[in-house]
């Protein structure tokens, strides 16, 4: 356990140390010493900003991510279960997936205005695809013998969906959800760089425009930390949902 913690923290600590000492005497306006950035970090983020900027960002991310999860899994199960439906929608999916979501921001602004809805929609538009496409693959990949077993025992409807389809597809769904999470964080920031009045992305841009360089750096640092914490939380959920999957894989070795 201790060895794993050491392995986990060794490189970040080393990088941090290198940054600290390399920037220690810096007088460069754009590259302030890390010590100054940390002071700015404390002053900037341990304040009302946590409520005014960080919380709205995370709330929009949560809303967009949750909506993408729901829609992606529901559509993915439907498309994955029906070869006919798949034949019709696959070309459209390929097209929609290929559009980089930031491009959609101006369009979404036209449709949904510049409020929270726009930002949530941008996040959904990026997070949906990995979840949807992975769910389709997962549903298609349900083991034949297992599917036959369910048919023989006449396991149908909700029972089949809950205990066969969703569970069998869950490793793929989790993979899609993981990709979607990192896309979601990126889009959370990008959506706030356009026509926003609050949020992490907005704040970082504001600092940059106001030449508050240490504060700007501290915002970038915070975004990185948010990403790490979210991915840790994701790991915990993954280990719970896919306990059987990891166990089975270990047993086969």
């Amino acid at each position: 356990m201790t060895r794993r913690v050491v392995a986990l923290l060794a490189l970040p600590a080393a990088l941090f140390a290198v940054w600290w000492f390399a920037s220690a005497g810096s007088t460069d306006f754009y590259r302030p010493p890390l010590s100054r950035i940390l002071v700015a970090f404390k002053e900037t983020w341990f304040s009302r900003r946590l409520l005014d900027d960080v919380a709205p960002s995370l709330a929009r991310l949560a809303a967009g991510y949750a909506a993408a999860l729901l829609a992606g899994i529901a559509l993915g199960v439907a498309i994955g279960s029906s070869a006919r439906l798949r034949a019709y929608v696959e070309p459209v999916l390929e097209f929609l997936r290929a559009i980089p979501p930031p491009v959609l921001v101006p369009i979404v602004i036209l449709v949904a205005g510049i409020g929270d809805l726009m930002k949530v929609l941008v996040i959904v538009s990026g997070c949906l695809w990995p979840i949807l496409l992975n769910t389709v693959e997962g549903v298609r990949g349900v083991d034949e013998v297992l599917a036959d077993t369910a048919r023989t025992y006449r396991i149908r409807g909700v029972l089949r969906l809950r205990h066969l389809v969703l569970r069998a597809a869950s490793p793929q769904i989790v993979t899609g959800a993981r990709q979607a999470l990192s896309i979601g964080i990126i889009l959370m920031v990008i959506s706030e760089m356009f026509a926003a009045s609050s949020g992490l992305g907005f704040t970082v841009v504001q600092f940059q425009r106001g030449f508050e360089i240490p504060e700007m750096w501290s915002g970038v640092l915070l975004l990185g930390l948010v990403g790490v914490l979210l991915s840790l939380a994701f790991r915990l959920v993954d280990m719970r949902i896919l306990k059987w999957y990891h166990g089975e894989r270990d047993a086969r070795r």
Partner: protein
Amino acid sequence: MLDVDGLRKVYDTHGRHVEALAGLTFQAAAGEFVCVVGPSGCGKTTLLRCIGGLLAPSGGTVRVDGTPVTGPPPDLAIVFQEYGRSLFPWLRVHENVDLPLRSKGLPKPERKRLVAEALRAVGLSDADGAYPWQLSGGMQQRVAIARAVAYRPRVLLMDEPFAAVDAQTRADLEDLIREVWHHLGVTLLFVTHDIDEAVYLAQRVIVLSKAPTTVMEDLAIDLPEERDQLTTRADPRFTELRTHVYARIKRSTTPLEASP
């Protein structure tokens, strides 16, 4: 109870026309233990999938209890060869046994009783909280058998269920299945490529030809009801029967030009 009449199955894939089953006809009475043997690749699994309603035949009919099979019939269970793929890896042992009972809509106390009973019958009462992948192959197949037992089917199909376990486990499972059959009074159709296993287990052995498959022989096994791995297999009659079946299968697979 089980009535297979002129069953045909032709596979048409990629321009290739393969006749797997060329018209099979046989019956199994209620409560009978019938083994189906045949050379490898003779369409045993195809036959079983047609009877189980998982595969639509190209011709002929299958009736279970007088009703033509068009999809998986009620009161029919299958134990597959690939136990590792037929158990739900995300469900614990008792949940695996329980799931078909939930689909039947049985009340919870009854399900609980049936699950406990079935696991006791296969000697797995202690493992009910384990996941399938934590068990050995033989134990996993026991779980699959317990699931079939708890379901209380009137017809039980088994597709080479012991092909992938070691010899000792296999002997134990063979005796277990005889016990389960006695206990349930179920009509049992057991597909295997192992001639000894077929003769040891069954009341009747149906010998299939190589593809395109037909019934070559329908043989009554007149061994005593009480079977035992040591005495039954040493019985001269057992040797006679197995030699007879073996010769039939061998003759069917030997190419004509090779015969004298």
